[in-house]
C-alpha cells in the first residue's frame, strides 16, 4: 500500500468538501474493495475520506418503500426485522454476500457506488425499482447504473441512502462463482401489482441489467413455464475462465425459474 492520509468526515457535505480539496480523494465506506485494491498498489489516492461517522446508517419503513442508509452493513440488513418483514428477499440477498467478515464491514452504499458487475446489491436496486439518494438529488435505479463499475454519480456526490419499493413478492437467486462466491449469475425477480421486474447481475458485459423478455413473460404469467418459453440470449453476456456466455444464459433461465417457484 502506498502511504495516504485519512480524513474522517462528520457529514456528507464535509465528505464532498474533502474530495474537492484533495487531488485524487476516495470515499472509504466499508473498504471491502478499496482496501484490497490499495494493498495491491493498484490505486494511489492522496486522501481517503472515511464516512463512517456521517450518520448514514439505519433502516426506515417509508410506507410503500424501505429506505436504508448508505453505510448500513450487509449484516444489519440481513438481520433487520423490518427488512425481513417488508422485503424478505432483500434480507436474504444481504445475508448471502461474501462471508461473515465481509458482511460486518461491507456497506450497501459502497456496493452500489462501486457497481461491480458481479455484486449482488445492484440487482436488488434495479428489480425493486430503487432510488439512490445522494447529497444532491434522487436517482432512479434505471438511470443510476451506467455499465461495469460506472454509475451516474458525479465527483461531488455521495450516496446517503437507497430506497427499495415493497413488492408483492420477490426472490433473489444467486449462482455463486465457486472461487470468489460473487454472483456468476444472480437474478432478482420482483412482482409488483403493475408488473414484474427482473434484474440480472454477474452476467452482463455492462454490469447489472433488466431482462425485458423475462419481465414481459412473467408479467403476463408468473410461472416457471413462462420462463421456459423465453429464449435467453447470450448476446452481451460475459465470457471468462469461469463461465462462457451461453452457460451464463442458461443460468439466467434456471435462476429465474428458481426465483419464481420459491
Amino acid at each position, binding site marked *: *500500500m*502506498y*502511504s495516504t492520509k485519512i480524513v474522517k468526515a462528520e457529514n456528507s457535505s464535509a465528505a464532498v468538501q474533502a474530495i474537492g480539496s484533495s487531488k485524487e480523494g476516495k470515499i472509504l465506506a466499508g473498504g471491502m474493495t478499496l482496501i484490497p485494491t490499495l494493498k*495491491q*498498489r493498484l490505486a494511489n489516492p492522496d486522501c481517503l475520506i472515511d464516512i463512517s461517522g456521517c450518520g448514514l446508517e439505519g433502516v426506515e419503513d417509508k410506507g410503500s418503500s424501505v429506505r436504508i442508509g448508505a453505510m448500513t452493513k450487509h449484516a444489519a440488513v440481513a438481520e433487520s426485522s423490518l427488512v425481513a418483514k417488508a422485503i424478505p428477499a432483500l434480507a436474504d440477498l444481504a445475508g448471502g454476500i461474501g462471508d461473515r467478515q465481509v458482511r460486518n464491514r461491507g456497506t450497501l452504499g459502497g456496493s452500489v457506488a462501486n457497481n461491480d458487475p458481479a455484486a449482488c446489491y445492484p440487482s436488488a436496486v434495479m428489480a425493486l425499482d430503487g432510488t439512490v439518494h445522494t447529497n444532491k438529488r434522487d436517482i432512479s435505479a434505471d438511470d443510476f447504473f451506467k455499465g461495469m463499475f460506472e454509475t451516474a454519480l458525479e465527483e461531488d456526490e455521495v450516496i446517503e441512502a437507497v430506497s427499495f419499493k415493497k413488492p408483492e413478492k420477490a426472490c433473489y437467486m444467486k*449462482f455463486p462463482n*465457486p*472461487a*470468489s462466491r*460473487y454472483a456468476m449469475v444472480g437474478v432478482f425477480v420482483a412482482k409488483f401489482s403493475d408488473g414484474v421486474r427482473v434484474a440480472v447481475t454477474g452476467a452482463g458485459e455492462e454490469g447489472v441489467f433488466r431482462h425485458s423478455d423475462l419481465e414481459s413473460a412473467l408479467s403476463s404469467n408468473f410461472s416457471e413455464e413462462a420462463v421456459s418459453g423465453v429464449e435467453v440470449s447470450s448476446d452481451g453476456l460475459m465470457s471468462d*475462465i*469461469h*463461465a*462462457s456466455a451461453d*452457460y451464463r444464459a*442458461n*443460468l439466467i433461465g*434456471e435462476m429465474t425459474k428458481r426465483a419464481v417457484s420459491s
Partner: protein
Amino acid sequence: MSEGIGASVKRKEDRKFLTGKGRYTDDINRPGQVHAHFLRSDVAHANIKSINTKAASAAAGVVAVYTGEDIDVGGPICGWVVPNRDGSATHEPPHPLLAKGKVRFVGDAVAVVIAESLQQAKSASELVEVEYEELPAVVDLETASAGAEIHEGMAENRYFDWELGDEEATDKALKSASRVVKLTVRNNRLVPNPMEPRAALAEYDDLNDSYTLYTTSQSPHLTRLVLAAFMFQIPESKIRVVAPDVGGGFGAKIYVYVEEAVCTWASKKIKRPIKWTADRTQAFLTDAHGRDHINNVQLALDSNNKIIGLRVDTLANLGGYLSAFAVAVPTYLHGTLLSGLYDIPAIYTNVKGYATTTTPVDAYRGAGRPEATYLLERVIDQAAREVGMDQAEFRRLNFIPKDAFPYQTAVALQYDTGDYEPALDKAMEMIDYKNFESRRSEASKRGKYRGIGVSSYIEACGIAPSAVAGALGGRVGGWESASVRVDPTGTITVTTGAHSHGQGHATTFAQIVTEKLGVPNSSVELVHGDSDRSPFGMGTYGSRSLAVGGVAISKALDKVIEKSKKIAAHLMEASADDVEFKEGKFTVSGTDKETAFGEVALAAYVPHNYPLETLEPGLEETAFYDPMNFTYPAGTHIAEVEVDPTTGVVEIVDWAACDDFGNLINPMIVEGQVHGGIAQGIGQALLENAHYDENGQLLTASYMDYCMPRADDLPSFKVECTNTPCTHNDLGVKGCGEAGAIASPPALINAIINALSPLGVSDMSMPATPETVWRAIQNAQARAAE
C-alpha cells in the same frame, strides 16, 4: 487410556496452533533486520535488454539492489535425473538466482531490492527499469512440443525423454488383445497453497563467517546441503538452517528456491539480517506447481476381460526451469506405479518432459502417483463399461491375488505384501453399493442424476531405499536419522531429521517412545527442524516420516533398551540375557527382582554403582535407517454423487474410504490425514485449476479465481482401514499422508461419468466445474438428437 501405539492420542501440538501461538519464520525478528522485495518479470518469455537500478538504489531507505549480474554463486540444482531413450542424459539448463539475460515465466525474479522497510523496498522496486524484448509465450504441451525454444541449445525444448518397461511385449499384447481400451486424460495443473507462504530470514555472522537461515522448509538439512555444497561452495558447517513451525508444505517446501538463497547470499554482502515473506500472489506465481500431464493410455484385454497389457505415453509440462525433483515425479514416481493393484504382465511407458514459460512444476501431495492412479482408474472404469461388467467386479477380477506376494510388477517395483479384496469389499459395504440402483432411481424422480465411482489405488511410500533411488537417478539418500536422549530423570528427548508441518509428529513419535519405553507421552519432547540440533536427516515428503523416520526412532529406542538392560542387569546383579523389559520395568526371569526405567536412567548419569569397565555412562543413542523397499499403502475409495442437469452442479453425497496403511500408530491422526488428502483430491477433481492465458499470464493467481475446497464443498467422509503390515520395517507401517489425494480424483470423476452414462456421457475432464459438466450433458443430448 493407553498412550502407546494404536491409541488416538490428541495432538500435543494443537494447543499452540489453535491459540495462535505457533512460531513461524515471519514471527522471528533479528536486530538490525532489513527487508527484501523481489522485482518479478511481468512477461512470460523475454530477453532482458537492460536493467537500470540507479533510481531504485537512490530511493529512500534502500540498502542494496542486486540483479543477476551481481550474483557470483550458483542457482538451484536438479536432485534427480533420468537417462533418455537414446542413452543421453537429462538436459539440466542453468537456473540463475536472479534472471540473467532472459526471463522464463511470469514471476521469474529479476532483481532484489533490500530496504529498511518492506514498503520502501516495494516502492523502490517500482523505480527499477527493465527493458524486455518479448518472445512468444509457451503455455501448453502442444506448443511446447512443437518447436519452441526456451533454453538455449536444449533440443526439441525437452528436458528428457524416458522409458520404462517392455515395449515389444506390450505392443504384442495390444496387437493380440481382444479389445484395446483407449483414453486420453489431462491431469490439471494445481497450485499447492500451503496456508503459510514461503519465507526466509537470513543472518550472517561476520566473526564466524557463517550463516543462519530461518526458512519454511520440509527438509532443512537438504536446504543446508544444497546451499553450502552446490550454490555457495562453502563448508556445510558454516550454514545453519532452521525450519521453525511451518504451516503446511504439500511438497512445495521441499526445494531450495531462489529467494531463500538470494537473501542468504546478500546477508553477507550487506552484513545485516534480511527478511523476505511471500504474499499470496508471489506464492501463486513462484511455489512449484503440481501435476500438468497429458497421458495417452491403451489397455489390452483378453477375451476373459483380463488385462494383458498397458501402454502409457505421457507428456509432462515442467515449466520454465527444472525444479529439484521435477524429473522424478513423472518418471519413477509415476511410471513405476502403472501396474496399480492389478496383475498386468506387460507394461510400457514413455515420458517426455517439456519446458514451458510457466512456473516450474514439481512434487505436490502424491507426486506422480495421483497422475498414475488417475489414468489407470479412468481406463479401468472405461474398460468395465465397454465390456459391460460391474466396475467393482472388473477390478476384483484383475487384482493381484493375495497369494501372489511378494509381487514383481512389470515396471520395476516389487510389492512386499497386500490384500486388495477386503478393502474393496469393506468400502462397498460402507457405501451400501448393492442398493445403489434404488438410490439412482429415487434421485431421478427428483430430476437428479446419481452416480457411483470406484477408485482402487496403490502408492509407493516410505521414500526411499537409497540404493534403489540411486540406481534410478536420485542424487540423495533416502534414509532417516533419529536420536533418543534419555535424561537423568527418565524423560526423553527425541531428535529427528523428519520435519513436521502439520503431520502431528510430536504426538505420533512420542507414542512410539511410550510403547517401547513405557514412559508417559508427556515425558517425551520432539526436536526437529534445526540443522544444528538434530543429526543429518532427509526431511518430510513422500509419506516417509513414519515409515522411515519413525522406524529410525524405533531402532534408536532398541539401542537404548539394549544398553538399559545391561545397566539393569548390573543393578539387579543378574545376567543381561536374563533381563526382560516390559511396560517400563526391568525384571529378571525366574526371580522377583525388578527395577524401573527411571532408576536405570539415573544410574547411567550418576554411575556410582555402574559397570564402567565395560559400559560407557550416559543413555543416548542414534540410529540411521535406510529402508529395504518402498512401502505400498493401497485401498479403495468409492464416491457417490448427484448431478443437477440444469446447472451441471455436482454434489458429493457420500464417500467411503478403506485404506490399508499397515499398522496404525495414531488412528485419529491417520483419519485426519485421509480427510485432508481427500479434500485436496476433490479440489483437483472439481474446483482447482491453474489457468494460463495465451500470453503466459496466470489468470488464477488469487482466491478470487483459484478455487480452493471449502468445508461446504465436502461431504462427511466414512473412513476405515484394513491392515496387512509392511513386511520390511520394524513397525509394520506404510504411510498415509498422500493416499487421500491419490485415491480421490478418479473416484469422483468415475462417479460423475457413471451418473451421466445414461445420457451417453463417457468422458469428463478435470476440474469438473459446473459448466464442464453442463456442457458434457448438452453435447451428449445433441448427439442423441442427431
